[in-house]
């Protein structure tokens, strides 16, 4: 049995009827109305409870939760810079390891969480993330992927999807908008051979929380990539974040899966996928796309989904059945 499977032997998932009451991230923060990122972060923290130390990258979630002298954090939290959340948590985790071993403290069960946006993860912070994953620190890294640099005003990142409009990938006579396909950081994380990688969505809250709980139980690094709609940057209605996140999964654009000890496992098979156009049309960042562009995107989405299925089949990963999951699914 691999490290992760061993640690998850007695795993019990959260129950839809009885969710944890703790709110380590308090209300009263300053995120925009309908922000999918803060919703995802809240779910992550509910899943982790209060015996946690959090390192934040610069970005929306740092700015909106910590304007001095206020703080939305009921757990210890540190922000240092944009690109180094993984390196900072490496230090925190190493300190706890040394201090516990040397008998200077007795706190062996603290959970270490680092999080950053897609810019702080896929671009400028990728090196620090890769270093920390490779060194095998016992921590969880959460990427809150809203597919652009939102904090600085909706500029493209390497996680911005093909064709999307941002302020540095504007569509025009000679441009479709974002010209490159989304960088797949979850695959990059998995290529490090770490015990646990997962994708998650705040529209599937139980699944997200269960994955984060697993990530905390497994020794060594864990990476969770969370799809996080941003009404401000994606130009969709503020009450649609959850709906947009759900559509991303149901159109196969953002499939939910886990990689446990190198075994790829689909969290939910999208048997009857919706067309990507349904997802694209509710967001004004895609409104300039032509039928032909949408066909190209559909083709690419299908190919990528096939690739994922192949990985699952080849590594012998079986889709897992989860309690309560159907109730909030399609």
């Amino acid at each position, binding site marked *: 049995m691999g490290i992760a499977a061993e640690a998850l032997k007695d795993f019990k998932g959260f129950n839809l009827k009885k969710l944890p009451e703790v709110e380590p991230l308090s209300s009263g923060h300053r995120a925009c109305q309908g922000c999918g990122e803060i919703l995802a972060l809240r779910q992550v923290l509910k899943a982790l409870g*209060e*015996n*946690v*130390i959090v*390192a934040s990258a610069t970005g929306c979630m*740092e*700015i909106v939760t*910590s*304007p*001095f*002298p206020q*703080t939305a*954090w*009921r*757990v*210890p*939290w*540190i*922000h*240092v*810079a944009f*690109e*180094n959340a*993984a*390196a*900072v*948590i*490496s*230090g*925190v*985790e*190493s*300190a*706890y*390891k*040394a*201090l516990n*071993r*040397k008998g*200077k*403290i007795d*706190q062996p069960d*603290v959970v270490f969480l680092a999080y950053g946006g897609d810019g702080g993860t896929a671009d400028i912070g990728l*090196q*620090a993330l*890769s*270093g*920390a994953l*490779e*060194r095998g620190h016992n921590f969880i890294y959460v990427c809150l992927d809203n597919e652009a640099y939102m904090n600085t005003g909706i500029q493209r990142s390497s996680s911005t999807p093909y064709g999307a409009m941002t302020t540095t990938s504007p569509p025009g006579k000679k441009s479709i908008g974002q010209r490159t396909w989304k960088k797949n950081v979850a695959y990059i994380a998995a290529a490090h051979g770490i015990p646990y990688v997962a994708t998650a969505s705040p529209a599937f809250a139980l699944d997200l929380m269960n994955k984060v709980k697993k990530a905390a139980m497994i020794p060594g690094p864990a990476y969770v990539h969370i799809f996080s709609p941003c009404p401000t940057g994606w130009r969709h209605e503020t009450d649609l974040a959850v709906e947009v996140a759900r559509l991303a999964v149901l159109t196969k654009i953002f499939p939910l899966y886990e990689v446990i000890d190198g075994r790829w496992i689909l969290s939910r098979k999208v048997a009857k996928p919706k067309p990507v156009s349904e997802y694209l049309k509710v967001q004004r960042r895609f409104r300039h796309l032509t039928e032909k562009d949408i066909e190209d995107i559909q083709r690419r989405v299908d190919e990528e989904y096939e690739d994922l299925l192949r990985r699952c089949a080849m590594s012998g990963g079986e889709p897992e059945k989860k309690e309560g999951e159907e109730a909030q699914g399609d």
Partner: protein
Amino acid sequence: MGKRVGMEVSIAAAEVVGLCDVDVIAAYPITPQTHIVEHLSELVADGHLDAEFVPVESEHSAMSTCVGAAAAGARTFTSTSSQGYALMAEICYIASSLRLPIVMAVANRALSAPISIWNDHADMMMARDTGWIQTVAENGQEVVDLLLHAYRVAEDPRVLLPVMVNLDGFILSHMIEPIYMPDKEEVQRYLPPYKPALRLDPRNPMTFGPVGMPEVYTEAKKAQDEAMKGALPVIVEAWKEFEKHFGRAYHPVETYKTDGAEILLLTMGSVSETAMTAVDKMRAEGKKVGLVHLRLWRPFPAKELVEALQGAKAIVVVDRAMAFSTQSGPVCVEVKAALFDHGISTYVQNFVAGLGGRDVTVEDFEMMVAKTSDGLAKGLPMTYEIVNVRE
């Protein structure tokens, strides 16, 4: 009891850090600093030092890891040089703003381009405004002593600032010197265990590094500046304590044969020892020359410096780094400002010497003194020049 040993200075630096009960060391290689962290990794590997050795993937992460570890309550150490310092500089500002008592040894080296692995003070000068305390060693013994002193100062509850100990790359870092190495008990008597004022602890949650709106940023910087200024007496006190424990005395500003001196050389780092030889030679020839050298670069000991320089007819400031397109090198700017603030208008000549590993010799000092004395006699304007440039 400690003992006198013949040892490479880098190894001695690592040994003394190893005696300081450090908890976390983050390291990334760069010449000429490498021997320090290599030896620390050996101490950890052999079980002589109980610490987490984190072999990070860059200097940026080295400092980030130290920040995380120090915030979690660990005693931390890292070391770098030149380009490595440049890469970590972003986080160095944050380390001091978060008031984390990290200690770092910098084996001073020139900055690219052209790439040069040899010694000058460009990295030390880049660190000038980061809010770190900076001490400067002249020889191997001082490297050991200043590292011990660094932890004592950094962790003093009245200070809580990171400390950078500067040692000249190769010239010091790779020398084998006789060094008095204290033993663990001696170190423990001088250096109390680290008790963090605040730490990342789920039982007592705190927010570290929040956003500073315009209403608070200036106040935060003022508080930081006051902490830095307030560190000066603590630094001096820690040196006095050091003298009681180990018998070696240190001061922010050191003087050599300054009695009756009309021309004073002003230096920093290992070049001060060459300057002393030059002073001896010139004194033997009847020239009234003395030496003032700075041991403490930040906080800048302006008052002590002015006291040391007062009464001289001319001052020869030797800079080891460029400040492009200015009227003086970085050290000389400070010296002139300090004199001006105290209403003193001594004749000051500034020479930039020893860039990128170029030797600074006794003859160079003689030449600088001769030029200065000539300029003073003829009433020539004060100058700033790079010495020994081949045209």
